[in-house]
């Protein structure tokens, strides 16, 4: 019997099992032993209530070498202490079974379908989930440039919307699937190129979203104090790329938000909510401090068109209108509807209900506003013409020069904003542009610059928008595929379409080539000395954040710098 098995104080039946096993290679023994060693340490008699204690003892003693490839996810799960007990035991059970049986049929694994999903937000996870379900032999690896998964669910959803983040539970279940692995801190482009990925995997699905912004292209856009809403949202959500944004909230009482979509409403609401209410959310600490010292009391939500065209939805509007002690100003003159407006609203339930809410808010506002009260102004029919520079503080924004607009129907029957030649200035010290996200192209990837997406047909990447050839084995899902629109659930249907395309293609052209898959990826990353983050490592971050958060009455205290995040993963 190999020595590491006798060291493992495992129960005699396992030893019996091992020796009676018909598995030829000794790898499964080592693999099973890793699992059990970690177990033994976990369940030593001196630690009787390891599953019930709130802060389980450290499990660093597992000296067994990390198991190979897909078994790593299972072993990792075993050493994670804040797993649900049933999941722990299920994974332990599966790891023994899986290890032995998988190794026995190891020749089959090299013929299994190797899939890589780039991006671990909703699009990535829904795609992974559907691929795992549709193809029982598929091995899915999800890579993300951040050490933390879940994309915008973690870094985009507002801190005061915790229910929207519950979907993370579903995604975690996918990550815990035996055939799925997460690789964080792996950037497509710098850590690994697209061509390298396509060599290692049969199928590559790009779901890396839209990490840039549309630009207005007007003078003064580079002035200090002008930020994109995306950066501001990442800042208050503790995204490690923007923890140093340090927006100046102390030298002005007015902020202008350009755009009237849900992201615009989010940033306005975070600026206007009382810090006390925010202090019990998972807002990043540096943001909470800044907002507690903020002098901003007035926020303008400015749209180029009218209330009928406002891009926000009822839930978010209802929420912001219900903020306590908030004076909401909507000019009644702006609420006059034209026949084109009526036509637009006729078949659009969302527009109808949003308009009703705005109308009600306009007429029901309190007659007088007290001084120091926070104000929200819905400003319609204003197009930004240029940003005004401060005379006192050179290089800083002082206000926005707007052109008044009117609506006109274009050739496609849509109402667009046309300048009237009349102008108006609104003074402010902070501008947040919330006019839309944009995807970033990478080397070797076809990209449609005007639409900001990867050209594709039903998720199959094509070489150009003008009907080029299909790029073999390359697919897209999510915002990268259809543009930055929709809600989390939209990706459910999007992923279904992409996976249907993948399945059709696999059926038509049977997978015969052997690809390195997960082992190839690990090998490549190790050669490049890239310290990738596993899902188990993320769970260490998760545990740490929740632990510190609970001391402060928050659901979690986000680790907001690269150093902090990566340090915890090494523990």
């Amino acid at each position, binding site marked *: 019997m190999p020595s590491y098995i006798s060291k493992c104080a495992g129960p005699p039946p396992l030893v019996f099992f091992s020796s009676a096993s018909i598995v030829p290679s000794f790898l499964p023994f080592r693999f099973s032993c890793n699992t059990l060693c970690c177990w033994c340490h976990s369940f030593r008699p001196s630690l009787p209530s390891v599953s019930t204690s709130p802060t389980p003892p450290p499990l660093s003693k597992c000296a067994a070498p990390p198991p190979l490839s897909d078994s790593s996810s299972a072993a990792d799960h075993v050493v994670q202490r804040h797993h649900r007990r049933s999941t722990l035991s299920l994974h332990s059970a599966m790891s023994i*079974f899986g290890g032995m049986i998988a190794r026995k049929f190891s020749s089959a694994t090299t013929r299994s379908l190797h899939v890589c999903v780039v991006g671990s937000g909703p699009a990535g996870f829904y795609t992974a989930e559907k691929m795992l379900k549709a193809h029982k032999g598929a091995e899915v690896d999800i890579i993300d440039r951040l050490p933390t998964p879940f994309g915008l669910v973690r870094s985009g959803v507002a801190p005061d919307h915790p229910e*929207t983040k519950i979907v993370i539970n579903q995604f975690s279940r996918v990550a815990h699937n035996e055939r799925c692995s997460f690789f964080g801190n792996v950037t497509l482009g710098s850590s690994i190129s697209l061509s390298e990925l396509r060599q290692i995997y049969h199928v590559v699905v790009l779901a890396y979203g839209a990490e840039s912004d549309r630009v207005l292209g007007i003078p003064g856009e580079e002035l200090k104090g002008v930020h994109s809403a995306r950066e501001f949202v990442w800042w208050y959500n503790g995204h490690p790329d923007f923890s140093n944004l340090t927006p100046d909230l102390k030298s002005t009482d007015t902020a202008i938000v350009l755009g009237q979509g849900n992201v615009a409403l989010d940033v306005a609401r975070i600026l206007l909510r009382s810090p006390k209410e925010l202090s019990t959310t998972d807002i990043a600490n540096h943001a909470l401090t800044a907002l507690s010292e903020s002098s901003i009391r007035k926020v303008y939500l400015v749209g180029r068109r009218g209330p009928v065209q406002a891009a926000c*939805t009822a839930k978010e509007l209802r929420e912001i209108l219900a903020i306590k002690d908030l004076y909401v100003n909507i000019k009644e003159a702006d609420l006059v509807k034209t026949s084109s407006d009526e036509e637009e609203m006729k078949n659009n339930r969302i527009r109808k209900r949003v308009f009703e809410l705005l109308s009600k808010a306009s007429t029901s506002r309190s007659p007088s506003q007290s001084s120091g009260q926070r104000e929200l102004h819905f400003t319609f029919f204003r197009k930004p013409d240029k940003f005004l520079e401060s005379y006192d503080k050179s290089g800083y924004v002082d206000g926005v020069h707007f052109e008044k607009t009117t609506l006109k129907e274009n050739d496609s029957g849509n109402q667009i904003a046309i300048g009237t030649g009349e102008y108006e200035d609104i003074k402010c010290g902070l501008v947040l542009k919330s006019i839309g996200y944009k995807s970033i192209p990478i080397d070797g990837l076809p990209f449609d610059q005007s639409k900001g997406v990867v050209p594709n047909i039903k998720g199959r990447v094509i070489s150009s928008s003008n009907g080029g050839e299909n790029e073999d084995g390359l697919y897209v899902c999510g915002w990268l595929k259809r543009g930055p629109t929709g809600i989390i659930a*939209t990706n459910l249907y999007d992923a*279904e379409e992409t996976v249907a395309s993948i399945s059709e293609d696999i059926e038509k052209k049977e997978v015969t080539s052997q690809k390195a898959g997960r082992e190839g990826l690990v090998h490549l990353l190790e050669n490049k000395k890239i310290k990738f983050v596993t899902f188990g490592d993320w769970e260490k971050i998760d545990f740490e954040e929740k632990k510190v958060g609970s001391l402060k009455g928050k659901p979690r205290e986000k680790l907001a710098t690269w150093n902090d995040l990566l340090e915890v993963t090494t523990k």
Partner: protein
Amino acid sequence: MFISKLWRLGAQASKGLSKAPLTIPSRRSFFPIVQNDSLDASSRKLFSTTNSQEENEDKQKISVTFFDKDGEQEIKVLIGMSMLEATHENDIELKGACEGSLACSTCHVIVMDVEQYNKLEDPTDEENDMLDLAFGLTETSRLWCQVIAKPELDGLRLALPAATRNFAVDGYKPKPH
């Protein structure tokens, strides 16, 4: 023999999974996390959400049928139980991303008969807000997580929204009424 032993042990493990709390592993059992004396043949459901399954068997159940692109499936739901929970226990392909907190629209169902739709209680503003965004919305759409089983709903027939759609790059917009 090896396979049958594996099978039996696997069956033991899966039964054991429904047991809580986890106790110190017995050195004698193959799976240290399962106590032999804690195995209970009557408790077969994995990750069971209710503790008193035996009591509930006496209560009445209503029948609900789901229609999707693959066919139809009938399930039985205990009166007073959340419909969405019952649906998940029967492995119907219906998501509940926000787990019933009215923060998504993934549990969207379409009631096939208007009369049955009218028997349901009116949706709240909050439910309507999320229905606004639901995929393939119709006049008789509801969010399933908001419906609790009651006797009048026996024989309810529901359709799941069609799964595949063309996602045009210029933005497919579902057509609500």
